[in-house]
């Protein structure tokens, strides 16, 4: 079953020569695991752009991590032909990132489309991020086609979730398409509906050229590949192009469409979607949301909606083996080529040595970067507890921006502002109580609550981002048996009663464990860290006090008692080799010790103390 369009029809939808009324630009909004990549795979096959022999699962996901985790980090666009009532159409499917950290990238992908498939697992219903992205699509005036996927599953409840979707987007339950990406059932109807329901683009073919960048990817062989939606005018090979935000100019070396492999073309016209190659080496020179224009037909007004990527979450990354510091620098330099949102600068920690203070869009972004550094560059890393950006104003009027607890100013502080988010939690109604308790404990203010269906509730809160990055997500999952989902977006700042809690080992501050927390939480943070470290740090030759302090005031204390016995009682003939090998192993282990003042702390203790709480970035 490969119903390709005929050659005659194909001639009418040539790239750079397709009338706008024959173009449909759409994206798929879906939660991870709801089957977006599988549906995309089926569309590639049914439209014939990928031959069966070339097919592989999750064809469009490029990175190993994407395939393994089943999530799309970076989007891509694919052009597919489809015929309805004898008329050929060019469909551009723009794949959207599916995660909370990449809301801005999602918004740009949506801005490149006229319509969206709202894809929901018929056994699970809609999730918080999908809902957030749906609202984003509705704000962008996109036409929504509701699709329930995985109808082949025994647990599927299409009627129930069709009601839910209908309630959300204001359609009839019967309007929901029922498909199985796995078997292919219903996929042709989806393609038909894209053509009948989604409006054609309506750009100004002859106006000044304006194309919006919705993705930008670094390729080792070709440099940066920039994905654009041409809104007005046209782009041709060897045009001189200009990025409106930076005024940087480049020559177009190649222009074309993905189908899904790259096909160079004679250009791209208003309404079309494709890629550009200019030879630049860094995605920062080709920023998502920016407007591309041409020297020969320049636009003065950029397209609306451009934002600089802004890191929201910061963490120190340190190589466990200090000699890997240059390797870490090199690896970050390479990742940066493909990640406009990643920022980093050198940081020195008394406890952890040399590393980098890195800025991320959110926790998932942090975890993906960390995982790529460890996997692709073979680095062993310690990451410090994630922190957010605090604005600290002193009584003398000076102001400090603090992204690292160790930079928290001393002296008289007038006011501290912390970043806030608008959080949406979707939960089965059984767990509304525990979720509300959690949000309140995390200093959330309730903005509203709606029943999506009889047994599913949407809760909206304004919560400090610092609480979200701490352990909110883990707690949310544990209180709802894993059923709740979370989405959040930045929502300004708020003054708060925050303090820095330091942890001292034998009187020396361990910078890696300092944290900025709400005054009411300081004591429990201090007690928890002190008792955790007492368990993790082996007894030393002398007694080691573990203290938590706000400034010079000690708020919690534990004591690691001095070790009294460290000797094997027997060492005779046959024991000697064994004992020597043990000694050699212990000496090897000592190389993985860090000295904090005079206290030997195993690397593992740092990792364990830092990971168990801050590690809330698990799969959303």
């Amino acid at each position, binding site marked *: 079953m490969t119903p390709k369009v005929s050659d005659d029809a194909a001639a009418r939808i040539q790239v750079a020569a397709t009338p706008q009324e024959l173009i449909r630009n759409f994206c798929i909004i879906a939660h991870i695991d709801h089957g977006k990549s599988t549906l995309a795979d089926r569309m590639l096959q049914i439209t014939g752009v990928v031959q069966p022999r070339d097919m592989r699962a999750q064809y469009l996901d490029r990175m190993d991590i994407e395939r393994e985790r089943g999530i799309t980090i970076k989007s891509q666009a694919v052009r597919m032909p489809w015929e309805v009532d004898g008329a050929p159409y060019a469909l551009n499917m723009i794949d959207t990132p599916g995660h909370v950290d990449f809301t801005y990238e999602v918004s740009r992908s949506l801005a490149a489309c006229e319509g969206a498939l709202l894809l929901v697992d018929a056994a699970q219903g809609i999730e918080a991020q999908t809902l957030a992205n749906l609202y984003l699509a509705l704000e962008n005036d996109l036409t929504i086609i509701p699709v329930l996927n995985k109808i082949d599953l025994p647990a599927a409840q299409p009627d129930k979730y069709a009601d839910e979707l209908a309630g959300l987007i204001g359609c009839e339950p019967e309007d929901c398409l029922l498909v199985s990406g796995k078997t292919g059932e219903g996929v042709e109807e989806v393609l038909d509906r894209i053509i009948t329901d989604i409006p054609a683009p309506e750009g100004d073919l002859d106006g000044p050229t304006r194309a919006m960048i919705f993705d930008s990817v670094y390729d080792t062989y070709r440099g940066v590949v920039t994905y654009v939606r041409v809104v007005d005018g046209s782009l041709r090979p060897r045009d001189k192009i200009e990025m409106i935000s930076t005024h940087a100019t480049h020559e177009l070396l190649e222009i074309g469409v993905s189908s899904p492999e790259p096909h160079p073309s004679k250009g791209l016209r208003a309404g079309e979607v494709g890629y550009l190659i200019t030879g630049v080496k860094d995605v920062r020179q080709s920023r998502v949301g920016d407007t591309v224009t041409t020297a020969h037909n320049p636009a003065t007004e950029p397209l609306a909606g451009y934002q600089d990527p802004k890191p929201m979450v910061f963490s120190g990354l340190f190589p466990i083996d200090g000699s890997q510091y240059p390797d870490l620098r090199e690896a970050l330099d390479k990742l940066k080529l493909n990640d406009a949102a990643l920022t980093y600068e050198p940081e020195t920690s008394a406890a952890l040595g040399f590393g980098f203070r890195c800025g991320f869009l959110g926790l998932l972004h942090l975890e993906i970067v960390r995982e790529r550094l460890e996997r692709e560059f073979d680095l062993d890393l310690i990451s410090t507890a994630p922190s957010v950006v605090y604005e600290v104003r002193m009584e003398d009027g000076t102001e400090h921006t603090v992204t690292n607890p160790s930079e928290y100013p001393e002296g008289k502080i007038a006011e501290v502002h912390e970043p806030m988010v608008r959080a949406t939690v979707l939960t089965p109604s059984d767990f509304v109580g525990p979720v509300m308790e959690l949000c309140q404990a995390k200093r959330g203010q309730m903005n509203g609550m709606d029943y999506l269906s009889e047994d599913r509730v949407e809760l909206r809160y304004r919560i400090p981002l610092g609480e979200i990055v701490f352990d909110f997500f883990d707690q949310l999952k544990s209180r709802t048996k894993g059923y709740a989902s979370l989405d959040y977006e930045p929502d300004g700042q708020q003054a708060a009663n925050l303090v820095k809690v330091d942890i001292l080992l034998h009187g020396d501050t361990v910078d890696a464990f300092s944290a900025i927390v709400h005054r009411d939480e300081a004591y429990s943070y201090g007690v928890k860290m002190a008792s955790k470290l007492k368990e993790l740090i082996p007894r030393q*030759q002398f007694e080691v006090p573990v203290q938590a302090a706000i400034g010079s005031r000690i708020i919690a204390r534990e004591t690691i008692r001095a*070790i*009294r*016995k*460290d*000797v*094997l*009682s*027997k*060492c*005779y*003939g*046959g024991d*000697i*080799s*064994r*004992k*020597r*090998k043990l*000694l*050699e192993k*212990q*000496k090897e282990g*000592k190389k993985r010790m860090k000295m904090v003042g005079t206290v030997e702390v195993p690397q593992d203790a740092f990792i364990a103390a830092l990971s168990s709480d801050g590690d809330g970035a698990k799969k959303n």
Partner: protein
Amino acid sequence: MPAQPAGQSAPLDGSLPASAVVGADDRGLSLYIHVPYCRVRCGYCDFNTYTADELGPGASRSDYRPMLAAELDFVSASFDRAGLPDREVSTVFFGGGTPTLLPAEVLAGVLMDVRGRFRLAADAEVTTEANPDTLSPDYLATLATAGFTRVSLGMQSAVPEVLAILDRTHDAARIPQVVSWVKEAGLQVSLDLIYGTPGESLADWRASLEQAIACAPDHVSAYSLIIEDGTKMAAQIRRGRLPMPSDDDAADKYELADRLLGSAGYQWYEVSNFSTGSETRCRHNLAYWRGDDWWGFGPGAHSHLGGVRMWNAKHPRAWADRLLAGHSPVIGREILDGDVQELERIMLTARLREGLAIGSLPAAGQVEAAEFARAGLLEAGAFERGIFSPTLQGRLLCDLMVRRITETL
């Protein structure tokens, strides 16, 4: 049972590396004879020992003496071939297992077989380990006549409840009697004690020490119980049936032992060993710690010649099969380079009261030693004379100190 160490495989013909021979004239020679039989296996024990009477051809108790004689032949021939000098043997030690499960005549016979191939010094120390259950005045008289000079008695504890947890079957009340028999036979006697058995109180341990001291032995060994992987006791602790012994408890008990033994006239000479004087120390064990040459016979026995460590096949059957095939029972060995030999030397001599010369340590180790002396872990007087000799507190932290002073090796 611990596996034999990882090493190279050893040649079947028993040939020795040239480095084993270098400098042999300056080193003493001792022999160890492993008797791998016990009546019952104790729950804490991970030694190479077997309770069955029949282990197959060459491996059963009745085959022990002829098989050991074959090994003596093989080894003495390989010494000659390697060009090792003909040295007097200064000590012989029968360990197990329970050597005294064998009839006294067999042990005496084995010692006679040893004399047939090796030259025993006139003042040779010949020790056997013994289970109190197995001894009688006649048994001891036979040993004395054959040339044994010393018995190391596995007393372990004076408290029946503690002995029960250790699976020891002997009657604690019998110990004073057995000790007097050993003395009457003209042999030196050492008592082995174990502290830190799960459930043992400080008062229990004090009772054991007091009973041992009341027996007036020449020598006392006091071992902190080690929970070895793979033993029944390790499994009982894992399942929560026995409490895990604590290091602090062991430290308290070691300090008590040092105090009670010290005031009764027993002075420590190695971390776990105390004696009434220099002539009652165990010279055989000192040979291990001082880096002498020593050869081990019997299943699983280890040997050391000039920085080469070797070990026999572990199971009695594997050991016997190799001998019956005319092959060396040594299956593995490691040839230690200079740094590793140095590490072993420091590791072993740091346990001794006679200590080690601080000037022989790496420079960084000497700096560490000065820190330890300041912290009261080394005897101040000895330190002044350039000797590393641990204090009571230092003995308890001996491994910690060794790691620090050898960090740069």
